[in-house]
């Protein structure tokens, strides 16, 4: 697979390590009443869809940036690659 890095251009996926679903950016609020249940879901439960999946990849053998890659788990086609920083800021701004 080739990941089209927003800053560096097309890179071999072997340069990256994979973390998982990009929902991991949305850490639950530890102060909430239901924090225990929310952290259980956050830590252990996944959608694991067959089809489009937003996921976190770390450019370990490159510029060490975190990326959010939108990839099809049925075909390995990659539709969009963004810096995780930008995605996280955008999500935070939306609340």
């Amino acid at each position, binding site marked *: *697979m080739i990941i089209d890095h927003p800053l560096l251009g097309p890179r*071999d*996926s*072997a340069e990256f*390590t*994979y*973390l*998982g*679903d990009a929902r991991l950016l949305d850490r639950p609020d530890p102060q909430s009443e239901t924090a225990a249940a929310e952290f*259980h*879901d956050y*830590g*252990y*439960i*996944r*959608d*694991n*869809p*067959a089809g489009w*999946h937003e*996921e976190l990849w770390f450019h370990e053998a490159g510029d060490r940036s975190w990326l959010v890659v939108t*990839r099809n*788990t*049925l*075909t*390995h086609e990659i539709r969009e690659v963004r810096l995780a920083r930008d995605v996280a800021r955008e999500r935070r701004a939306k609340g």
Partner: protein
Amino acid sequence: MRYSGFRVIKEALTGHKGWTAAWREPDPQPAYDIVIVGGGGHGLATAYYLASKYNQHRVAVIEKGWIGGGNVGRNTTIIRSNYLLDGNEPFYEFSLKLWEGLEQDFNYNAMVSQRGILNLIHSDAQRDAFIRRGNAMILNGADAELLSTAQIKERYPFLNTENARFPIKGGLAQHRGGTVRHDAVAWGYARGADSRGVDIIQNCEVTGFRIENGKCLGVETTKGFIGAGKVGCAVAGSSSRLMSHAGMRLPMESHVLQAFVSEGLKPVLPGVITFGAGHFYVSQSDKGGLVFGGDIDGYNTYAQRGNLPVVEDVCEGGMAIFPMLGRARLLRMWGGIMDMSMDGSPIIDRTHIDGLYFNGGWCYGGFKATPASGYAFAHLLATDTPHDTATAYRFDRFERGLMIDEKGMGNQPNLH
């Protein structure tokens, strides 16, 4: 029809006209007591033990493709019971004992071969860890033996014990481990279940569950609705997809594992060997091909094919211990979708929906588990209590902090 040596001779003398199909191809009935979704090793074994041990005969196995087309026919066929943790070791040892009697039990030649498995040791820390594991195995009634480099050299003279980047410092052997002809396991269980009245329905995909007032009443399929007193799901890599029809999200990711087979060679490798400094395992099939594999690719996927970086990594692992492998040509490679759980261990449990049961999370080690998994799942379906060897395989273990994490990797499925 019973298979035996006598039968083979009789058929040989009468022109092989007496052989019949090993199982029927029935149309689905409107309803069954128990419906098993997934005709892989685990689903078929479950049906077999339901019929043979728990006296349940109104049972169907629903398979979307053909039986044996999933991971049960794609794996590298290694069986062993060399686990460390209490939640696992009794279960896997139970499984190995069932393998030992399986062919007589279901009257089918599954080519169970206890040729032994050897895990190589490359560092002092690894030796300590393997000694501990070996002791845990012995405590649970399994066999384990620590071998020195000299003993290994005697048995496997071709291993690169000198001049290696990761020198071989010994090994942990389980002599009762070995290999089994994988698809014969599916066929043997299918035939055994069918002859006890189980309907095996192929080319029939389960597309949903009929759930009313918190109770599962049956499954929607491409051949129509099939009613069921209880539904047991055992679809391995498709677990999240299937259970999403019941509104469930699982502690699991689906990943691809690749396997490789070389051209046929004369007998060179007597047992199963695993490389401890990287991840590489190899055995030789009876046809002569070297069958080997390594790590999963490491990203979520439902495509039954992997990528080249892992091919390179696996072959490097092989070359590191086994330089003569470099002269062999690769014949075939393929992939299968693994149900990688959050702690690397499986789940055999009821769901929160009445009448709906789940078996999955086998990661890349579920072939060896096939007999015990089927037995334990049949026990759960028939009695509504977990089997003695499977009490730890519950959905709520993550919530309760009772993870069964052999490698201590945490909630990162691609590291298990």
